[in-house]
């Protein structure tokens, strides 16, 4: 039976954007890549559509990373322009959110590729079986991988907090 991509899209897209965002760190770009992943999958009929589209998305994100340096230069300019704008009313709250986000992102960056991928895919809703297939692990090893990845992420986050506290 042909894959009901519309249904897969409804049930997967937010998770896919979340997954991609944590790779490319740009919500618009993540959304764009997620759409692209679906667009490139529509004429396929995989056994596991959800897992399939995550694989396509991961490949797109990897390609995306290759242009990261060029884009970073652009973002720097954007940031300089944004800094000149007047502060919003609730600036403290916003700054606090940004601070937490920066440290969470830095903590995630401290993980090795496999741990980070396991965490992001699990958080995006993939099952242990799907993770095992994507990561080349046995199902039984997924729990161990996730346990290690989670512990490292929390430790890295706390290290980021401690580093910031020391100034």
């Amino acid at each position, binding site marked *: 039976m042909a894959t009901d991509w519309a249904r897969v899209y409804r049930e997967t897209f937010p998770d896919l954007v979340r997954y991609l965002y944590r790779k490319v760190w740009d919500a618009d770009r993540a959304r764009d890549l997620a759409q*692209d992943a679906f667009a490139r999958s529509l004429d396929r009929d995989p056994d596991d559509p959800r897992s399939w589209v995550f694989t396509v998305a991961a490949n797109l994100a990897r390609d995306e990373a290759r242009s990261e340096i060029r884009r970073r230069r652009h973002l720097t300019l954007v940031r300089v322009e944004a800094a000149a704008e007047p502060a919003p009313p609730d600036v403290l709250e916003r700054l606090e*959110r940004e601070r937490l986000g920066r440290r969470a992102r830095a903590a995630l960056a401290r993980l090795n590729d496999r741990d980070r991928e396991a965490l992001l895919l699990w958080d995006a809703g993939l099952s242990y079986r799907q993770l095992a297939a994507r990561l080349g692990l046995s199902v039984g090893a*997924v729990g161990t991988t996730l346990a290690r990845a989670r512990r490292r992420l929390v430790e890295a986050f706390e290290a980021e907090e401690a580093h910031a506290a020391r100034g």
Partner: protein
Amino acid sequence: MPHVDDGTLHALLDGALRAEDPARADAVEVHLETCPDCTALLEQAVAVRTGTASILAALEPDARPDFDEVLARAGAERAGAAGVGGPAGGRGHGRATRGLAWAATLVLALGTGYLVRDRLGTDPVAPTPPTALSRTAPESVADARDPARTAVPDERAAGPAAQTATGPLSTEEAGAGERVAPAERRAAAPAPEPVPAAGEAVAAGEPVATGAAPARSEVAGRAAVTTAEPSLALRPAAGAPAMALEAGLAAPEWRSISIAEAGTLMDGPVYVLEGAEVIALLARGRGVHAEVRSRQLVPPGVEVEVSQRRLAEADRQVGRLPPAGAAPAADRDAEATELEVQESVEAVHHRHRITVTGALPARILERLAAGARPLRD
């Protein structure tokens, strides 16, 4: 049985162990009830798992275009047009770092040992064998032992919601709504007339038709504060008739169901709030009139009620949430600072309307509702 390793505990907490090997999940649970070393390890695993969820929640994107855009893009690509386009940079982090001050508190709490020892060790309710719900909803096994249900050094944990979460209701409630004893579990099942006015009478649409519409906008149609409405929430709202709450427990049409059954009933995923754990799942009605209700535990230990209904096709085509019933912003803000008040918000996810009721500020509930995700079976 030998001691349990960290990976197995995480698999148990994730529901994967029960899905893959139910007999081993049973054995691990039995072992945990008698082994303090493994219980301590479980406590750490729960804390790390919760901390991870909080950290990742600080890294949220914000977007959901319409599927038509995908179709259009696919057509364009087949015609040889450019593939990945769109702006680089730009708005970026709209919801990416949304209000996680409490998450930071939670993470900082990791070292303070706020865990489940009392539940797994000294709590007389703890040895309750796996229940019907835990059999059918693997994640609830972990939920019943979630540390967030016990004590967290968060200011909200000192409030009434946390008190109820630590009370004698918790473990058995997680088991089955059908076995609820009304006097002891006033919040374990939906009220007899649960929020239908806001839910059924008003058409709700899917506010995601435009490509740039952020998920945040899904909560734009939140309902009025439900201080006078019977609710599933643990603490009756001010003015809520306690008898009605208890009567609701015996309402025959409500039934405890599994996640899979709920998914069938909803013709789609059952939604769990961001970072929350489902601790009870009930349903009533059939077809488009079906409603699924769940009690969900939001870190750091506040229980909220989540009602899910299918959107009628006509409602979805409206493309917007109902304007009626929303409290004036000023009122909401005032009440948001008073946690004695039950707030209720609505969000639309795909083909479902989610109503979230709980003793949290509306802005927090909105954030949770907007981040609701399909619950894995």
